[in-house]
């Protein structure tokens, strides 16, 4: 406090209302550079640069022409003579170039922020509209292209060639890559490969110098951009079935055992539109193979599920907070983990559930 007092005594005048305001704000804990009233005040043609040092400057035409001899006029035309009436006080009112630039910048920043805010709102609205349009038809496109519209593999008529190319490359090259499907690929490589694969989905990725992480990212992006593999209309049923799985097994008479709980989940999966089902089957089977190499790349089924459920189960987070999300993440991850671990049971007609090691 003493320091502030001394500041004012040094300039030998009472603070003007404007300065009082500054002072109040400072007291309520927010701190910023106070318009300074130290004994280092500008002398003659000096001003502060943005580091707070004083530099000499030429009196510009602009300044000299707007500077009335007797002082500066305020808005109502009166000369603003305060207690001290010193020239420097008025000099300060001129808002030097620096301040003006700062304000312009701040204004632009604010503008930019507002623009982004608006863009986001628009996007949210669009999403909400899309949501309204969908009427629970599994497999229909809510966003992005239908999977069935892509060129199909010659080996499997309901598998887009794009997916097969990526999966085969990852099967061959990705089994020793730590964090495969977790660590994102290099952005440039991802863009390059995306472009090349759109031109020619059956391209041999080995001919390009591309890391396997980038291929995994491209595949993830593909599933994010096309229609959801698992239609959102089935989400509730899936989550319900998954909630049963997570209940501890009750061995007593009359209670469903583990495999019958999984059977309920399998029943829901069968409702998926055929092309999507085939692609899901192919992809999950691939993930199962990946998870079997967990000792080299550290991606066990749980890690894979955590990294991939947002892609496979495209739950709409619009308007959700992170806290909501925490509650919404556990079950979807369990669904995907269960699909990977019990891949044979869900997709390859095996009757028995496999023991998870």
């Amino acid at each position, binding site marked *: 406090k003493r320091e502030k007092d001394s500041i004012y005594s040094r300039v030998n005048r009472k603070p003007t209302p404007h300065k009082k305001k500054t002072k109040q704000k400072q007291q309520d804990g927010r701190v910023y550079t106070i318009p300074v009233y130290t004994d280092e005040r500008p002398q003659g043609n000096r001003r502060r640069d943005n580091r707070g040092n004083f530099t000499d400057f030429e009196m510009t035409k602009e300044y000299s022409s707007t500077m009335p001899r007797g002082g500066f006029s305020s808005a109502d035309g009166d000369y603003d003579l305060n207690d001290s009436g010193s020239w420097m006080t008025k000099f300060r009112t001129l*808002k030097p170039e620096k301040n003006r630039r700062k304000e312009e910048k701040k204004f632009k920043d604010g503008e930019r922020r507002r623009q982004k805010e608006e863009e986001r709102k628009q996007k949210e609205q669009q999403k909400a509209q899309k949501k309204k349009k969908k009427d629970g038809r599994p497999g229909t496109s809510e966003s992005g292209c239908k999977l069935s519209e892509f060129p199909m593999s010659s080996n499997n008529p309901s598998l887009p060639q794009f997916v097969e190319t990526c999966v085969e490359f990852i099967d061959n090259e990705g089994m020793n890559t730590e964090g495969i499907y977790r660590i*994102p690929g290099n952005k440039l490589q991802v863009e390059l490969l995306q472009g090349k694969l759109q031109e020619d989905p059956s391209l041999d990725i080995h001919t390009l110098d591309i890391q396997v992480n980038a291929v995994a990212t491209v595949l993830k992006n593909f599933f994010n951009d096309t229609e959801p593999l698992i239609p959102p209309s089935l989400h509730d049923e899936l989550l319900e079935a998954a909630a049963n799985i997570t209940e501890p097994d009750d061995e007593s008479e009359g209670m469903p055992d583990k495999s019958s709980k999984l059977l309920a989940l399998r029943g829901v999966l069968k409702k998926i539109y055929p092309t999507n089902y085939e692609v899901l089957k192919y992809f999950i089977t691939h993930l199962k193979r990946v998870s079997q190499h967990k000792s080299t790349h550290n991606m066990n089924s749980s890690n894979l599920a955590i*990294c991939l459920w947002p892609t496979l189960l495209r739950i709409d987070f619009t308007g959700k907070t992170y806290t909501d999300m925490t509650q919404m*993440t*556990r079950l979807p*991850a369990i669904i995907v983990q269960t699909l990977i671990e019990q891949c044979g049971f869900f997709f390859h007609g095996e009757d028995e559930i496999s023991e998870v090691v």
Partner: protein
Amino acid sequence: NHIDKFKLSLFGEMGVGKTSLITRFMYDSFDNTYQATIGIDFLSKTMYLEDRTIRLQLWDTAGQERFRSLIPSYIRDSSVAVVVYDITNANSFQQTSKWIDDVRTERGSDVIIMLVGNKTDLSDKRQITTEEGERKAKELSVMFIETSAKAGYNVKQLFRRVAAALPGMEQTEPKKGEMTEVKLKDTGPIEPEHKEGGCSC
């Protein structure tokens, strides 16, 4: 005995070590199991500083790109954003600009941002030099530190430096070496004063 609480959020690509940094700071340990973070966790820790005591709420986020749209709601009440990259992964370094941009879009200069280059223990695989990190931090006017959560290098310092930069009840003159904070605070509240009247005195 008033204790100020501050929310600190960690951002960064998947697998750069956000959770490991928190684990090292909270429990002074390192978990060797490779485990992706599901959703979000938060932990609190009280810190004693020279002149006061604060409580830091550490929010760990999943690095999933699908969750990026949630950042605005998440950063809104954070005082600190710690943006982490992996010094052995050039891509994670490039992506920090985007994270910082997201944070700035939401909070302008009302937030302390710390850029962290993690995994210095893997020096033989290093792709991003300390200088590159420093340069970027300077360009984006954020703080910078390199750490190793695994080796326990610089992790305490990271959180201490952030804590020291937080606004206090009676803030003294900001220290000289830390230009960032000065910038942070001098932009906010001044503007309305100039706008209120036609004349600023």
